[in-house]
């Protein structure tokens, strides 16, 4: 096939007529950068994230009959059907490397947007860099509330932050109490990096505000070789609810150690992380019947929205896992970003930013139990309602909030 000069001219004229000036140079692909830990202790998160993003890109680039932005038709219609291309960068959990990778993605890979980063510490520097280069950044899976409060113009977070998550957890406890359950004392068990510290600080504050007694607040070193001493203190405190904020490794060790030291908590209400990872349930699922974890995602939605199940199947085919708290947020982050680029009809950072700020996607057009995606002036989506999931019979069942629940919570856990 040969393309004559006339064809090119005609095409160019047509494109110029349809598109704003900035996008005229636009070719057939839109490059988006993703920065994750791909080696080291958290490599598994980065590798799973790749699968989630591939799934989302697949849906955008090919024709699928889902009620999801950009699913129908191929590529981005706003940019003449341009396809999404993803570029991954490994930040190894280091803020400096995160920044270097963000700069490389922007200046060399010419990405028009960045999504990341899992670790909140890295999100700090990556989002700063994006701000400097006026490239929009979506914080897909960072939950530290301090991130959006810095007032960055190019920072967006479609999913909930820790305060929203923890508030949902305490709403749930309040409701239980109202129904006459004994829920008075709490034991916090959290790791010592930003995630655990932030989570525990929020929970301590909420507990004080709402009249719960914190009988143990145990901060442990992440990836400790042993948690016996910590578990003993939990056992001695024997709170009504154990609230762990732990990553997968420590979560597995915690549950094993509890069983070994004969401690059976009355109830566990977890701040996701490890407690939404398949690896943890593969390892110790038999000891976790009835555990409740907060989450962003619920497979129960598939009953109401069949596309959720289908997308989950697509992801599962690539990764061998169901979508979870992290991967679902990552998936949505790319959809939200691509949708904004499409509406901006441009790969110009500022235009995409404005389009992101104008986002108003109804919850039904997501795979999440959210009301909608709409950012406040800090770039935070406050309509992203978290859910609480209970692990029953080898599956997660949504038990809160009322509008999303499909079952009554079993309390205390068995």
């Amino acid at each position: 096939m040969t393309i004559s000069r006339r064809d090119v001219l005609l095409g160019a004229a047509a494109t110029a007529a349809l598109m704003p000036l900035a996008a005229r140079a636009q070719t057939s692909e839109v490059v988006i950068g993703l920065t994750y830990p791909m080696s080291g202790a958290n490599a598994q998160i980065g590798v799973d994230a790749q699968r989630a993003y591939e799934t989302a890109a697949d849906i955008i680039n090919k024709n699928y009959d889902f009620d999801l932005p950009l699913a129908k038709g191929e590529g981005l219609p706003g940019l003449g059907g341009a396809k999404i291309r993803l570029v991954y960068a490994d930040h190894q959990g280091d803020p400096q490397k995160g920044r270097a990778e963000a700069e490389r993605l922007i200046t060399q890979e010419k990405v028009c947007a960045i999504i990341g980063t899992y670790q909140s510490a890295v999100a700090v520097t990556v989002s700063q860099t994006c701000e400097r280069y006026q490239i929009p950044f979506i914080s897909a899976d960072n939950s530290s509330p301090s991130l959006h409060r810095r007032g960055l113009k190019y920072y967006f977070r479609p999913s909930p932050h820790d305060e929203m998550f923890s508030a949902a957890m305490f709403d749930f406890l309040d409701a239980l109490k109202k129904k006459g359950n004994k829920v008075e004392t709490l034991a916090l068990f959290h790791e010592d990096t930003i995630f655990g510290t932030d989570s525990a600080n929020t929970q301590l504050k909420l507990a004080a505000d709402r009249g719960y007694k914190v009988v143990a607040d145990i901060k442990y070193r992440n990836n400790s070789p042993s948690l016996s001493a910590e578990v003993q203190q939990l056992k001695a405190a024997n709170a009504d609810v154990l609230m762990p904020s732990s990553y997968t490794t420590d979560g597995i060790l915690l549950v094993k150690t509890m069983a070994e030291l004969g401690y059976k908590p009355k109830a566990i209400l977890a701040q996701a992380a490890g407690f939404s990872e398949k690896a943890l349930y593969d390892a110790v699922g038999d000891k976790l019947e009835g555990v409740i974890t907060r989450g962003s995602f619920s497979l129960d939605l598939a009953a109401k929205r069949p596309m959720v199940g289908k997308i989950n199947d697509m992801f599962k085919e690539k990764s061998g896992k169901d979508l979870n708290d992290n991967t679902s947020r990552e998936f949505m982050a790319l959809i939200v970003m691509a949708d904004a680029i499409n509406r901006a009809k441009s790969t110009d950072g500022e235009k995409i930013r404005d389009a992101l700020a104008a986002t108003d996607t109804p919850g039904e057009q997501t795979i999440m139990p959210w009301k909608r995606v709409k950012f406040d002036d800090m770039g935070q989506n406050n309509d992203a309602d978290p859910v609480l999931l209970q692990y029953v019979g080898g599956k997660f069942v949504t038990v809160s909030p009322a509008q999303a629940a499909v079952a009554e919570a079993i309390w205390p856990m068995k």
Partner: protein
Amino acid sequence: MLTVETIVQSLASGLLMGLLYGLIAVGLALIFGLMDVTNFAHGEFLMIAMYLSFFLFAFFAIDPLLSAPLVAAALFVFGAVVYLLLVRFAMRAKANAGMVQIFTTFGLAIVMRGLAQYFFTPDYRSIPQSWLGGKTVSIGGIFLPEPQLVGALVSIAAFAGLYLFIHRTDFGRALEATREDPGAVALVGIDKNRVFAFGWGLGAALVGLAGAIMAVFFYIYPDVGASFALIAYVTVALGGFGSVFGAFAGGIIVGLVEAVTALVLPPSLKSVGIYAVYLLVVFIRPRGLFGSM
């Protein structure tokens, strides 16, 4: 919340964990004692052993306890090969021999982690069901988890066996002689390389044994060795480099100190207790508790 029960339980858990630390560390002590080489890939040897246990379980349903001898044997071969292919040459370095050994084994550690990630993926693995997994013995309200209990017994047996081996067998004596005077043994016809390769094999086999037991109750992923490597070095140095008995004592001390520190300080600082005790010991005894020379 400091009841007698929590204290006794802490000490019991600490003791069990300490014996396991000793078992993890003894291979390091043995190799160092034999030829003054510190294996900075020791944690990765542990990681490989844990993966071996896991795969033997996942593919052939062999319980980690049964496969432990297999894992130890495989690690023996692995250790000897590492010596013959790598460490042997590092020891021949004409300058800065100490640094060359440190960084050769350190580079090896990085390669092993990379290979583990490449071949096994970075997923977290664990053995959900095994003979010992999750079982526990309760004596008067004190809980002794069976995996750690068996681990402690294996550790004691391994140390006893090692003692007998070094002092009662010909090869053990050759090992000891090589350690004392590598030059002289060559004169009486002992092949130094053979002895060293055997020493590396034995050291690796011991950490293999530890890995097999750890696989029962710990998670497994490419970086798992990092959690134990520093503890192993401190254990060996605390006991005194080169002293097998020192590693045994060092392990117990580290386990107990860790447990006690977690009682008095916030648990996130419990390693500080271990490190402080190490510093205190070497300030008083610069060669560790039982170090020779």
